[in-house]
């Protein structure tokens, strides 16, 4: 005969479990809040210090890769094409360009889409891109998988890859994948999530919906934020400081005498 607990015991267990669950949610909410604050600080201070270092390091000589624009507006245009269209990469390799561009613009769109969790009321243009933002997740996965296949399959690229290069792809693929899974398979309480995020922004710790997929998603994002300033992700600010791209080709017309040289 199966041993059923008496109703009294069952109700005690139920109370205990829900208390424990309450404690767990409380702990997780505070833990993630602390990690988010830490990661944000690391990201801002770390990248800020790097940008300061780049801007303080002199560029004693004129080294634009020519042909280069001869004026500042021209340089701005070159930089724009580089940042928005990946012009140089396009010249180099169409596959890497396709995967890289799909990933980065998927990422941008996905990030913008996520602004809805941080704004109340949601800005109208953020609301406008919500439906397109879903495809951004697919674009990211497509790009990342393509880049990873190249990294594994092309002997030259495999040769130059360190473990961190693979892990970085895994990390970002994890973020994109867990995000898509939440959208289509294991939904989370987005209203509660938004309340939590808005709370964080005004230094109030609200209750985080403690669904496993969300916790994984957020943990990976926190990882990425912390790794950013100490990894190759510095290519993002680095591009703007690259002398071969940001210098005007005018050494005869204007004497290049950097003040910090």
């Amino acid at each position: 005969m199966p041993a059923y607990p008496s109703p009294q015991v069952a109700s005690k267990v139920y109370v205990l479990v829900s208390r424990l669950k309450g404690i767990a949610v409380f702990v997780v909410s505070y833990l993630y809040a602390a990690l988010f604050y830490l990661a944000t600080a690391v990201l801002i201070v770390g990248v800020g210090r790097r940008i300061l270092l780049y801007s303080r390091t002199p560029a004693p000589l004129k080294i634009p890769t020519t042909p280069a624009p001869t004026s500042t507006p021209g340089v701005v245009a070159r930089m724009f094409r580089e940042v928005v269209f990946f012009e140089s990469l396009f010249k180099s390799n169409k596959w890497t360009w396709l995967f890289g561009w799909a990933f980065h613009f998927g990422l941008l769109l996905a990030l913008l889409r996520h602004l809805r969790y941080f704004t109340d009321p949601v800005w109208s243009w953020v609301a406008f891109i919500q439906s397109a933002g879903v495809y951004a997740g697919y674009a990211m996965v497509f790009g990342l998988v393509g880049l990873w296949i190249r990294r594994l399959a092309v002997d030259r690229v495999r040769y130059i890859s360190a473990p961190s290069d693979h892990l970085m792809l895994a990390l970002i693929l994890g973020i994109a994948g867990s995000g898509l899974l939440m959208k289509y398979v294991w939904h989370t309480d987005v209203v509660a999530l938004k309340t939590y995020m808005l709370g964080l922004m005004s230094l109030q710790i609200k209750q985080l919906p403690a669904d496993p997929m969300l916790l994984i998603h957020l943990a990976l994002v926190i990882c990425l934020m912390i790794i950013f300033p100490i990894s190759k992700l510095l290519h993002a600010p680095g591009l703007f400081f690259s002398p071969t791209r940001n210098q005007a080709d005018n050494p005869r017309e204007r004497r290049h005498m950097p003040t910090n040289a």
Partner: protein
Amino acid sequence: MKAEFDIPVITHYPQTPAIQVDAMVHSQPFVAKPDIQEPLGFPGELVEDWHDKAIDKMGELLGKYRSLQVFMDACVKCGACTDKCHYYLGTADPKNMPVARQDLMRKVYRRYFTFAGKHFPKLVGAVDLTEEVLDDWYKYYHQCSECRRCSVYCPYGIDTAEITMAGREILASVGVGQKYSNEIIGKVFKIGNNLGLPEPALVDTLEGLEEEVKEDTDVDVRFPVDQKGADILLVTPSADFFAEPHVDGLIGYAKVFHQAGISWTLSSHASEAANFGLFIGSQGNMQRVAMRIREAALELGVKRIVVGECGHAWRVAYSYWNTLIGPFDFLDPNYPAPQHICESTYDLIQQGALKFNKEENDDKVVTFHDSCNVSRASRMGNMPGGQYVIPRALIKASCNHFVDMRQETIHEGTFCCGGGGGLLTDDLVELRVKGALPRMQALHEVIEENEVTHMAAICAICKSQFTKVLPYYDLGMDMIISVHQLVGDALELGVER
């Protein structure tokens, strides 16, 4: 041609080889002896505390050059550059892929200067600076011709030349300098030019040239030296003074000046446009070499400085002179300072000051090899890309038959001749032959399809390099000619202007 190594087989461009680890690990140039190192301010031999000195020097350079600091951080190992270097394409050694060449330094940078490399070296591929690593630096930073082709294709504009230069400077600063480059810089300091040609020999050579031109053309074309009050100081690579095909270029410049009625002079104090200070990444030595030219210009009281056909010299002149030895407020502001000989000749053609008999070059079908430093590190004329248009305009003005090589091997995508960046030395001949492969493939195409007979260039290193390597590919060494040889041969001398 016999050789102690396998000469690459010319197939159709492009041909990207599978990697062959350590294919060129045996290749390295002779190391400079103390008597060559010391006049340049470097220790004579490997110093005892080389490890600490090298790391200190790296730290110093990271603080001195934004390029180096940003380039060390920014690379994402995307692989865009991996099939762009002529030395990789010619040798298949993976350390000749630009990113791998950079990584030789980056892995040390990460170990000593980054959080990740200090605490998780294996994860990010960081290593200690060991003697083996230093050896690799010496070998592979002397398998880069600093041609910047990789920098065109890098999404962050990472220029391996900057890293090679830093690598060589660190090496020289701990006592491991390269004999070829450093010996030549010493000659410039001591005598005034790369070839060590003293003033009397220079004067003698130029007198010989005057006689030669008189014999050929019956016109008194002068080759003046140290002539005070001349309008133009011509600074040209010293190879122009006697070796073929260079000297025919010099004759061409002299004919142009003669016909345009311009007074010009060479200088025995600054009888060299080349500046190998660039190659070894030593800004101090580069400035010291260049300063002789400012001194000569002031001493002779010229109004303009014109630079002869030399690739890296034009980079230094165009991009750096104003910073290093400027300002040029003592020169005529109506002309760019400095001016390239091709710009000067081009302007004269535009003004109608020169007439050509193109039939003189009808025995030739000419193509043009864009030199790396001119193409990707400088400009001619007043618009971006003028460095491609102007030399071709000179060729077309003096020849009836001109064709370009394949698009991705010219202009900004041009391939280095294989001998640039301080590698034009016999102890690196295998590297030079193999590094010339992509250019040879493109040349071979236009020989087959367009019956090209000659390849013109505007760089002393390119001309010397091709003279040496063309025979390895069963092509005539006299295929390579100066642009101003074509100009000089077709120029009508003595006719009414």
